[in-house]
């Protein structure tokens, strides 16, 4: 009750109202600066609709990994605050880390999201209980877009739990192995 009173006092205060109005006016001006845009190309709109429907976290991880291979080694290679040798090792480790992280990150997310489909069936005759372990209560249709998005989200959460272990069991040793391979290769190239 006391908290409600404090909240009302703050919300009704002229200073607060004036600050909020100013903020709103700034936001509106920002919005006004941006031009209106509308899309009519059906092919493009269908493609965008499909992205919204089917682009899950596994694909996002893959997109992050592929673009990381373009940007991150470049940033490390131009890091003037470290010496040349450190820079080379840093680039090698970054590339190794991206390859290891993207491979495991994508495959585990993909596997968990796909597997979740088998364990999120609608309860009913002939469906064992474990096959509906991930189905939320009250759901009678598992073919809707909303349910697909739920499967993607839940599959991602499970994948993150799995990756807490694979981060050490697969990513770290694979990163070390790839870094050493790249550094050795780099040294051999330098000797030539």
């Amino acid at each position: 009750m006391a908290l409600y009173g404090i909240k009302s006092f703050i919300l009704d205060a002229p200073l607060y109202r004036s600050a909020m109005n100013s903020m709103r006016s700034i936001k509106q001006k920002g919005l006004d600066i941006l031009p209106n845009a509308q899309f009519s190309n059906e092919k493009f709109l269908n493609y965008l609709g499909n992205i919204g429907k089917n682009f899950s976290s596994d694909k996002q991880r893959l997109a992050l990994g592929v673009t990381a291979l373009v940007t991150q080694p470049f940033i490390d290679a131009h890091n003037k605050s470290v010496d040349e040798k450190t820079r080379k090792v840093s680039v090698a480790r970054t590339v190794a880390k991206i390859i290891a992280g993207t491979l495991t990150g994508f495959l585990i997310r993909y596997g968990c999201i796909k597997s979740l489909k088998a364990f999120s069936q609608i309860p009913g005759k002939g469906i064992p209980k474990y096959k509906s372990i991930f189905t939320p209560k009250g759901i009678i249709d598992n073919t809707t877009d909303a349910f697909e998005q739920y499967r993607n989200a839940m599959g991602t959460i499970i994948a993150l739990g799995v990756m807490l272990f694979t981060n050490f069991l697969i990513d770290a040793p694979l990163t070390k192995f790839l870094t050493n391979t790249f550094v050795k290769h780099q040294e051999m190239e330098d000797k030539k």
Partner: protein
Amino acid sequence: MANLFSSFKSAMYKNYGENPGKMLVHTGVLGWILSAMAQVSAVVFNDKISKEQKSFLIPQEMADAAINIISFYVITSSFKNLASKLVSTGKLSTVKIRNHIKSKLANPTDYIGKLGTNIEKDFPEIKGDYKAFKNGVDVVASTVGSIISCNIVTPVLRNQYAAQKQKEAIARMHSNDSKHEINSPNKVSMDSYIKLASMKAPSGNLKI
């Protein structure tokens, strides 16, 4: 326990069932948090790392984690929120949605692009087309935001942070040449600092 799991499933369905862009931002942040926790606990529970070394490595890992998590959340959610606002106010739209609004309102220019506008709420009859467009834009914006934060902003910030730490250590080394000891509260020797700094890659945590 069963009730808790049931509530968790319902909350997941309610929150992310119709909002894939939000799901990508939230699971991305969770991914960074878990990566950071794994990295910090790997140092905390590693018996081969001495107490002195831990006092150096743990704050470093935590600073790395803070940069990763904050920059990911701030940039990705800003991209997603801006895109959502543009779509919900009709600034960014499809011809079909725009024509429908024009056919229903006498003066659509007073409606489109205004902060209080909410197409989903005001025109439920075009919810299908609107949702398909909005979800697509949200996912593209979240992905572009995450690429910019993870692959451009974070590596640059991390390199700057690592360079700053290195410069501080070198400055301390010069001012304490006779002792070769850093006057930090942790009392890490310069030899061990250099060894530890070389162990740690400037490019930060392993992203899961």
